[in-house]
């Protein structure tokens, strides 16, 4: 397959087409994903092409996720959509108590190779129950895999890897990225191994570790800082489980300063885990590690209020600048 110019949403769609073609055991289903093609248009054309393997379901997240567990146990590879990550909370039992347990509790005699596609995060006008960033909830659960693509290429590659993998995997997309700029995407490549980090920008003064939509804001912030003579390295970790701790440490050994940026709120966020791993590894730091995230507040509907909470490029640049200017601890 040649490279194609695709948006993030089109890249997800292209990955689904590829997976339906090359893995006959795949199924795609969820609320409005069949005939309507998904509320964000991401599953458009699949029903027409693959018929009964793509279908609409009742608004029943427990039934969607539970049936995916059962179908996966019996040899299918269901790719189910949970329209908003917030809706997974309705059916967390099927993810945490069921999917994550199948392999372990059966002593490895059963597995549940299902992929849950969902999307999360804030957007103008999003409300409290349609904007939460919940990756840390899933990252706390052994037995799950979790990734958060931020580019069209990763939207394609990570989904292909997730569906080819034999573990229950959450692919957390971001709806603000679906209709973004088209980029050149390699669509027919080999299935990449699970895990790994991306150095999106190199720099020597500070390492910014980030994932999901925040990657773009962190890069924008790094650009601003560069104009001011401060060089931030941006390490994106699209795979959060497995998490490439080694890539973070490697960068930190060169920069000596750490800022973790995520859209999720701070307390119990995965940034805390990153900081803990860095501390545990004993990498000498020139300044205390910094976490940048949404403060521990519910998400308001009014755009001016939401903007005051979710980290933007300006705030990231300000906080990272202050971090770099700190005196080294004596």
């Amino acid at each position, binding site marked *: 397959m040649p490279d194609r110019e695709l948006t993030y949403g089109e890249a997800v769609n292209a990955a689904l087409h590829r997976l339906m073609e090359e893995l006959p055991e795949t199924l795609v289903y969820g609320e409005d994903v069949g005939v309507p093609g998904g509320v964000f248009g991401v599953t458009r054309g699949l029903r027409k092409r693959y018929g009964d393997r793509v279908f609409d379901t009742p608004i029943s997240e427990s039934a969607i996720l539970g049936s995916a567990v059962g*179908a996966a146990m019996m040899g299918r590879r269901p790719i189910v959509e949970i329209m908003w990550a917030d809706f997974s909370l309705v059916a967390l039992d099927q993810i945490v108590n069921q999917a994550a347990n199948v392999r372990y509790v*059966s*002593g490895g005699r059963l597995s549940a190779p299902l992929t849950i596609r969902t999307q999360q995060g804030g957007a103008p006008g999003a409300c409290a129950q349609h904007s939460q960033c919940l990756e840390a909830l899933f990252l706390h659960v052994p037995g799950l895999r979790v990734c958060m693509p931020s580019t069209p290429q990763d939207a394609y590659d990570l989904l292909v890897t997730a569906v080819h993998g034999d573990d229950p995997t959450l692919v957390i997309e971001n709806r603000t990225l679906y209709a973004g700029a088209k980029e050149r995407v390699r669509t027919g490549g080999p299935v990449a191994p699970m895990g790994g980090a991306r150095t999106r920008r190199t720099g020597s003064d500070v390492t910014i570790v980030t994932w999901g939509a925040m990657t773009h804001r962190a890069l924008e912030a790094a650009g601003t800082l560069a104009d001011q003579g401060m060089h931030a390295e941006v390490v994106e970790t699209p795979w959060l489980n497995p998490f490439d701790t080694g890539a973070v440490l490697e960068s930190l050994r060169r920069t000596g300063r750490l800022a973790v940026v995520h859209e999720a709120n701070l307390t119990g966020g995965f940034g805390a885990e990153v900081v803990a791993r860095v501390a545990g590894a004993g990498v000498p730091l020139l300044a205390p590690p910094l976490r940048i995230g949404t403060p521990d507040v519910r998400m308001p509907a009014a755009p001016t209020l939401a903007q005051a909470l979710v980290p933007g490029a300006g705030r990231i640049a300000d906080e990272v600048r202050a971090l770099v200017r700190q005196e080294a601890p004596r």
Partner: protein
Amino acid sequence: MSERRLADLLAMWRIRAFEEKVRDLRAEGPIVGSVHLCIGQEAVPIGACDVLEPHDALFATYRGHGWALARGVPPQPLFAELTGRASGVNGGRGGSAYFTAAEHGFHGENSIVGAGAPIACGAALAGRFDGSGRAAVSVFGDGAMNQGAVHEAMNFAAALSLPVVFVCENNRYSELTPIADMVRTPRLAGRAAAYGMPGHRVDGNDAEAVRFHMRDALEVAREGGGPTLLECVTERLAGHYIGDAETYRQPGELERIRRREPIARLREGLLADGVPAADVDAVERRARAEMDSAAAAALDAPFADPATAREHLYA
């Protein structure tokens, strides 16, 4: 006819002897933790599993030891699982509430009330694509009828015409609370109509009655007619869990239950039909001997190796 009933009696005695042995081992120490016995409910799994095909998938609950045995899982790996042995059916990772033996069409117990129902829908859904002709059976108690997941599963199976049989073992208690106090209409099978599927209330203490309805439901399912709800009315002779003080029981209740429990009933029926008492009672001795030796063999085996505790989390 009496031959099949004698076979039913043996099958039910195997479950009861297993469960009574479990109760002993829990009291003596080799089994620890929460255990839920199905004593008194043996006729439901025996009748239901008798008409299942090997490739059908059955999803049970934490009160599922009897279902595992009825599906043909040998008792020794079950005892080994209960006592934390490496030779346990799940290597000691499951325990009492998570027996799983897919090779016997037993896709596992579950200790979240009602959670197996959507999973069973998925097993049925898979059958639509893999050419197996598989039906799926979801077993749960009366309490699970009030869980959202069960409602979602019933509608999902009905809307998609999935080959699922929902078997509700109504033992009259949702854990420690009478189901009659937790619903407005105690006839649970009546809910089936709301989902557009057949629903039948079945004498769950009569394996033959369960078998009859199960056969019908499976036929409907396999022909594309969608799911059925069978409410099998039964009673447990044991507590909700081992150690349950059963303070909720009415005076004389257990005596009344014992008069109509499935094993006593079938034994009386066989004797009334002229089957010699020696033949009838030999069945119990045979079942107990099998379970005694299976348990002893399990206890002789080594414990699960702590060095393996992290294994089997990921592919």
